[in-house]
């Protein structure tokens, strides 16, 4: 091999290697920048502290109407849930169960168990009514949330909820959660 050919081979090899290490170290550079306006329709989450709550408002009275028309068929007129003959489980009960969490038959509902009122708004917004998810307006969402909380005696009958007042609703079981995983908590020996 002549010296010049050898040099060329070395240079080509180095060049390739440099291309590949550079590709590994840098950002890949694939994908498109997106602005908040572009994905506003997707940005629907509402956090425990209320971050993400949209403008709008709704009252218990308005919520009663919405609930009876769009929710009660499955969850019962008073949010008591509904059994279906031949099926296990039934439709979730949304109301009551207070004082049962440390008993042999705990009843977990929005009222007795959920730590944040905002979670109700977030969940109904993304998943309910089950037969037509993401169909309620923000006002309707505030109203139906208010009504479910009212049925649980958590807000008064004249309550009107919005982005400011909903996060301030104190849920009965807010202090009921241990957020640090204590496992391994069961120590068996071989």
């Amino acid at each position, binding site marked *: 091999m002549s010296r010049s050919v050898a040099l060329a081979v070395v240079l080509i090899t180095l060049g390739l290697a440099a291309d590949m290490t550079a590709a*590994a170290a840098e*950002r*890949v550079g*694939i*994908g*498109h*920048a*997106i*602005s*908040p306006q*572009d*994905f506003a329709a*997707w*940005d*629907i*989450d509402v*956090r*425990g*502290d209320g*971050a993400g709550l949209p403008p709008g408002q709704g009252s218990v009275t308005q919520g009663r109407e919405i609930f009876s028309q769009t929710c009660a068929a499955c969850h019962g007129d008073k949010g008591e849930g509904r059994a*279906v003959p*031949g*099926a*296990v*489980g039934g*439709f979730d009960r949304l109301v009551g169960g207070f004082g049962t*969490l*440390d008993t*042999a038959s*705990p009843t*977990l509902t*929005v009222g007795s*168990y*959920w*730590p*944040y009122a*905002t*979670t109700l708004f*977030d*969940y109904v917004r*993304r*998943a309910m009514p*089950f037969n037509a*998810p*993401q169909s309620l307006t923000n006002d309707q969402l505030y109203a139906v949330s208010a009504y479910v909380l009212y049925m649980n005696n958590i807000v008064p009958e004249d309550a009107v909820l919005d982005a400011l007042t909903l996060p301030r609703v104190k849920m009965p079981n807010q202090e*009921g*959660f*241990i*957020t*640090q*995983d*204590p*496992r*391994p*908590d*069961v*120590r*068996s*020996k*071989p």
Partner: protein
Amino acid sequence: MVKPHAVKGTPSQQLPDRRAVLKTGAALSAFVGGASVPSLSMAQAATGLSLTVPEWMKVQGRGILSPPYGVPSPFEKDVVRRQREVRVTDTAATSFSPLQNSFGTITPNGLCFERHHAGVPSIDPDRHRLVIHGLVERPLVLTMDELMRFPSVSRIAFLECSGNTPNWKSVNPDFGVQQTHGLLMCCEWTGVLLSTLLDEVGLGPEAKWVLAEGADAAAMTRSVPIAKALDDAMVVYGQNGERLRPEQGYPLRLLLPGYEGNMNIKWLRRLKLGDQPFETREETSKYTDLMPDGKARQFTFVMEAKSVITRPSGGQRLSGGPGFYEISGLAWSGHGRIDRVEVSTDGGQSWHEAQLQEPILSKAVVRFRAPWRWDGKSALLQSRAIDETGYVQPRHGELVDVRGVNSFYHYNAIQTWSVNPDGKVAIHVA
């Protein structure tokens, strides 16, 4: 070297000494009691078979491409996912994998369990998008084609629903391993490390949690701690050599090896970085563990070590009468590799180390096997897993002593199958 553990009491069924098995290289010669191998003529007499040339040797078989996408033999038609009970909807529902028919460790794509909260969406991959935003420097939207251009990785990992094995209060005498443990799968997953995508968008210094959201009609959401996201989390599009099945999140799902199934968000469309958990319904109302004092544990993500014998298991029968049977099952741990599995045939009085099939991978299912000579008497079959952290799969009593019976999720106690003298195997009702 493998060594059988000290035997307490008088075991009615003995597991052969594995050293002897390995030394002779022939399992059959190692049995206690020295029963003889049934002769071929005996086998013929027993089954009524006379060895004539079957019709399928006298004609050409099916041609290629019939069908183009292969399906199991029609004789395997009972090896299917099953529902355990009728629920109020079939879209917020669960189907169970037939572990009793499983071999090795990989779950075939068509048998992977299903847990949906709003059914299986029909997603056009060309219209699917992944958005990454929140506390990042460069919010990004990615098409599937773009995601598949990123540096890719493959890994084998198990995925278990934390609601698997409803044995807290009582056992259902009719349940087999499909119903008790069928919310488990193990697949080879291919996709992009989430850390690669997070490098691409540039993590903000306050980013501590990632909200992952699905494109189903539940818009399923869970919060994932940033440490997990940067460790071994992936967004995956490949499953056992092909694209994800729709039931498993086609075209894109989150994979969090070792974490409870629900967090492995299917149909992944959005990742939002935040400085605190988002407190979604699925991490408050559900997937929290209620303790006897009325307090609930939240953010209990890792699936601790667990194992189960899949053969023989509830609903099966030791059809050949007394003699040799292989005890075989699955073990897994969300904390890493399985270190060893022990098997008992006397309800946990004595334990014997099972053989583990290589390769033994971190956060993947491992197949264990132990040869057994059944003496025709009642037996109680159990397995227990010990993982690389030294954690020992607990007995039922040990588990409920600490957690009570109302925590619903994360049941991982030892499972017992009882063998009757007539050969029937059923879940053991204590």
